[in-house]
């Protein structure tokens, strides 16, 4: 069973980037890593391929400047190969353009199952998975907390606020997994060295049969009108307990209409 996992490579949250005021987008100059959210998809894919007794995990990623550091991490975890789409024409791509690119790349991979995270850590629109499924004309199950493949069907426990739904779908399908569903393995040094030799196919927009006008700034239907700094958190009010602490907290909560 071949599992495609969409993995986003994002600026390292430990060294947060900054917004470019002129393009209103993120400067992507610093260190790039595999989005933690996608490590769950990779682990899930590896476990499912393992359980199926064959097949492999194929990564698909769109990133600027042929950035492949995050892919190397996922390859070191055990994925077999990667498709990397990088093209200057993609600068300024909105979520839909990104989905178009990912969908075209996924078509080349002959996948039985496509996994994504529920939302990325940096952009977190959470719109890509459904857009990819729609463009591929495949069924989509969101918020998976458990996935089981049974022949040509996938059984998913779908996280809800109250508990979970049991959902079944024919394969191939797109499934988005929630964070924490599996424990992503730490890449071993052997895995890291093996990843050096694994293929990363670098593709351009034209290789995918897409027109440059459909993607990037040219194809964007989303426009960022303005960016501004998040409001600083206001300092909290400190209540010194002079024997009446409990009453004062109650009064405070009443004033907020919480109780």
């Amino acid at each position, binding site marked *: 069973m071949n599992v495609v996992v969409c993995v986003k490579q994002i600026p390292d949250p430990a060294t947060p980037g900054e917004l470019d005021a002129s393009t209103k987008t993120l400067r992507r100059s610093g260190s790039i*890593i595999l989005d933690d959210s996608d490590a769950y998809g990779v682990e899930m894919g590896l476990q499912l391929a393992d359980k199926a007794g064959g097949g492999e995990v194929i990564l698909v990623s769109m990133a600027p400047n042929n950035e492949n*550091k995050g892919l*190397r*991490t996922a390859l*070191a975890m055990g994925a077999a190969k990667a498709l990397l789409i990088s093209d200057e024409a993609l600068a300024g791509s909105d979520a839909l353009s990104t989905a178009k690119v990912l969908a075209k790349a996924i078509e080349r991979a002959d996948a039985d199952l496509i996994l994504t995270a529920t939302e990325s850590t940096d952009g977190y629109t959470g719109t890509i998975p459904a857009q990819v499924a729609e463009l591929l004309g495949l069924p989509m199950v969101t918020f998976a907390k458990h996935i089981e493949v049974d022949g040509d069907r996938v059984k998913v426990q779908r996280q809800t606020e109250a508990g979970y739904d049991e959902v079944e779908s024919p394969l191939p399908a797109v499934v988005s997994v929630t964070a924490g569903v599996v424990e992503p393995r*730490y*890449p*071993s*040094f*052997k895995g*890291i*060295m093996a*990843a*050096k030799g694994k293929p990363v196919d670098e593709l351009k927009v034209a290789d995918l049969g897409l027109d440059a006008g459909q993607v990037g700034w040219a194809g964007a239907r989303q426009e960022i009108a303005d960016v501004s700094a998040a409001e600083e958190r206001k300092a909290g009010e400190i209540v010194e307990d002079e024997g009446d602490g409990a009453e004062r907290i109650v009064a405070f909560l009443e004033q907020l209409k919480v109780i």
Partner: protein
Amino acid sequence: MAHPIFTPEHEELRRSIRAYVEKELRPHADEWEAAKDFPDSVFRRMGELGFLGLHFAVDDGGSGGDYLTMLVLAEEMARCGSGGVSMAISVQCEYVTPPIAKFGTAEQKARWLRPAIEGRRIGALGITEPGAGSDVAGITTRAERDGDGYVVNGAKTFITNGCRADFLLLVAKTDATQRHAGISLFLVDTDTPGFAVTRRLDKVGMWPSDTAELAFTDMRIPAENLLGEEGKGFHHVMWELQGERLSAAAGACAGAQITVDATAEFVKGRRAFGQRIADFQAVRHHLAECQTAIDAARALTYETAWRVQLGEYPVQAITEAKLLATRTHFQVADTCLQLHGGMGYMMEMPVQRAWRDSRLARIGAGADEVMLDAIAKSMGL
């Protein structure tokens, strides 16, 4: 930016170890400090992840990494929040196993090296004795040839992992009439009759690491437990201490950096005389001195590591790096404790632990004075 001696693969390994340390070690540090112990399962888990055998040959059960992988491990283990835990691990993979990999027979490797790399068997190194520490050649534990084996009598002290060990790399005299040339190495299972842990020692720092006093009474060991050549034990051990010293230096720099970073945060938050104490020039300058000292020690350590990586064996530089980095670690911890004021003296602050733990490295694995003497000797003095 990663330092140029490290490849992208080293940095990937660093991320992997860091994730493990932050998820599975750091959260338990306070609990293990309070218990003055930590579970053996840490060895098994690290073995399973391949972290105890990074630089060993794949055929021996290792990961086939280069020397620098050990530096990465030492630096990342410094983030576990407990010097005792990283010391116990470094004894396993930097003191005990390297001589088995280098001098061991195929049978010895199968029996002691592979299980140690996999974390299934814990090892300890027994050099120091109640009567001889710096003066290794002055040890008196005797291994006397007797038929097809040896009979050992004597005692060891300050032995890290000694209480929990499954086996001991024992340094003993096979020829009592000789000094260095009388020393040999043995691999001893701790369930051998005549082996006893006589005391678990209480220490200033490094609490979760167990430190044992051992006694050997007519302990009979078969000849096949001799590691390397009889009478060459001193050279065998000195060879391995070099590699260990350099990663100790790297770990010391990493530990000092953590303490400086935490202290920089502290002084930005603490106020006195109507301002942040970080705004007092005396305070800022102290931290700037600390940072400069760390950067200098790290530069020497990395340059030396690079030479080792290229196949050199720069004993003098290794010795200087160990001396400078471990001294720096303690001096930084001491300055940082001072900058915390009274809070620095409280057990709830990490800085006091860094201060207690870092004190050891100026004594263990070659005291400052012994390092200085070795450097002087290299200078032809």
